[in-house]
């Protein structure tokens, strides 16, 4: 089996998710080639051929141009599978390639067993084993699902690629994340509020427990999107990555994008009314309780100590 791995570069920096791609290649035990729109200055370590388009010519991600560069490379390499990260780059580009090749695409793959991809269903409460029915298959990999035991040290053989393709979509720059306010990454204890708090007034319950534990309060994305908490309190892939001594998730289901931001915490407590909530996968203690009742009682007991 032959696979083509699609690595990513942003503002001249090779993105770390290349390790997931290499981890997948190792697990699938396949002959692999690498595709990258990037720079000679920051070449990935890879034992094989790297098809490299120069990002100083092609600029930052442009779906129509990257699509053509990748289709040309697929034409040369003739892979059985094309592998992306399930990232803002991968989930944008992969379906364009899938359509051009009329290939089955399986998204957010978490495992690869007996040659069959496995993907999450319903907020990771369920999984499915998928059988693609096309000659070429496209996969996007969930972040962190395939890790690399040993990073390669080899320098790849570089094949320069180019295209004259243009597109209708125009990129005009980045807006960096606002930083400032609380730095959750320094907190020893974080108590986070999820949608399960029900209404904005209940942030006070979460903040109360955080204070009793001499920590900070954080939040999941819906709480921030509803403007019940500031963005700098959001934990997850599009918020902060934290690793406190204690993380208490209150009314948080445990979507992968939230877990990515907190699963390295030393000790995790989850308070949830749903016994099957995926947060249970990472929690050291899962308390089945209504947070509105339970958290104030817990806070009072801690304050009375």
């Amino acid at each position, binding site marked *: 089996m032959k696979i083509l791995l699609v690595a990513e570069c942003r503002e001249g920096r090779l993105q770390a998710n290349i390790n997931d791609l290499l981890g997948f290649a190792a697990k699938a035990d396949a002959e692999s080639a690498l595709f990258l729109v990037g720079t000679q200055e920051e070449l990935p370590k890879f034992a094989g051929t790297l098809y490299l388009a120069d990002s100083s010519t092609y600029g930052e991600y442009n779906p129509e141009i990257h699509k053509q560069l990748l289709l040309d490379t697929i034409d040369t390499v003739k892979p059985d599978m094309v592998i992306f990260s399930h990232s803002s780059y991968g989930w*944008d580009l992969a379906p364009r390639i899938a*359509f051009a090749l009329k290939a089955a695409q399986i998204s957010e793959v978490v495992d690869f067993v007996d040659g069959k991809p496995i993907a999450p269903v319903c907020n990771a409460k369920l999984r499915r*084993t*998928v059988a693609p029915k096309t000659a070429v298959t496209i996969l996007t990999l969930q972040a962190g699902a395939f890790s690399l035991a040993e990073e390669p040290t080899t320098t790849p053989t570089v094949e320069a690629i180019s295209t004259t393709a243009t597109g209708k979509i125009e*990129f005009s720059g980045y807006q960096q994340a606002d930083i400032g306010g609380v730095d959750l990454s320094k907190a020893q*204890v974080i108590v986070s509020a999820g949608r399960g708090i029900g209404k904005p007034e209940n942030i006070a319950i979460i903040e109360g427990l955080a204070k009793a534990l001499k920590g900070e309060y954080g939040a999941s994305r819906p709480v921030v*999107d509803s403007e019940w908490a500031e963005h700098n309190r959001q934990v997850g892939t599009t918020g902060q990555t934290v690793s406190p001594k204690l993380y208490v998730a209150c009314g948080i*289901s445990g979507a992968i994008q939230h877990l990515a931001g907190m699963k390295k915490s030393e000790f995790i407590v989850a308070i949830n009314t749903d016994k099957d909530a995926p947060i249970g996968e990472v929690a050291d203690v899962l308390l089945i*309780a209504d947070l509105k009742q339970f958290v104030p009682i817990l806070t009072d007991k801690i304050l009375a100590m």
Partner: protein
Amino acid sequence: MNILVCIKQVPDMESKFKVNAEGCWYDSSDLAWRMNEYDEYAVEQAVQLKEQTGADLTVLCIGPDRVKETMKKALAMGCDRGIHVTDAESFDKDPFAIASIIAKFAEQKSFDMIFTGMQSQDRGSAQVGVLTAEMLGIPSITTIVSFAFDAGQITVQRELEGGVKAMVKAPLPALVTCQLGLNTPRYPTLPNIMKAKKKELVVTPVADLLGVAVLQETLSLYFPEKKGGGVVLEGDSAELADQLIAILKEKTAVLA
């Protein structure tokens, strides 16, 4: 201007799921159904664009009879008409087949702007939007968190990892896939719910629009094995609190 928004009906994610008899999807009985969360943002943005431009707005949903309830919410939010593509087997269709149905419908209507959700909460493929645009040969932009239309062109922000946003422009016709937080989806008011009852809901059998076979199949659906040695505690709140305090004292240094 002519706008299309595509919505999917999904189960409430807090439901207790069961695997169906065939073993390849979840059982659809005893579930509470709602609009895919991402699609609420798509509907809201489409309604805002309609309000800005006076455009005509169609909402489309492929699924069994029960999806009409979800379509009524979209109509009450401000869509002008619904296209219900009836398909009792829509759960079995892959993103390629679903996109081809939408594209086949959209082809005949020449929409200037199409909105979809970034992904569906149950299947979570994040493919239908982009595939539909590729089939129609129009530009598509994914994961948008801001949207503006002016002088035949859209200006949007795409959300990237780590909270960085990319500013992107495209001419119409175009398709965007909507991310959480794009706007604040409105709640349908009672008068609008009443008005929605009178709006046109066209029923189209899926056979009229389906021209392709699926490219993939689900072989089996199952619950992941519970990993990790986490303890699960249940019971009276005061007792639970004492238990938890004891555990925190033993296992962490935060209560010392």
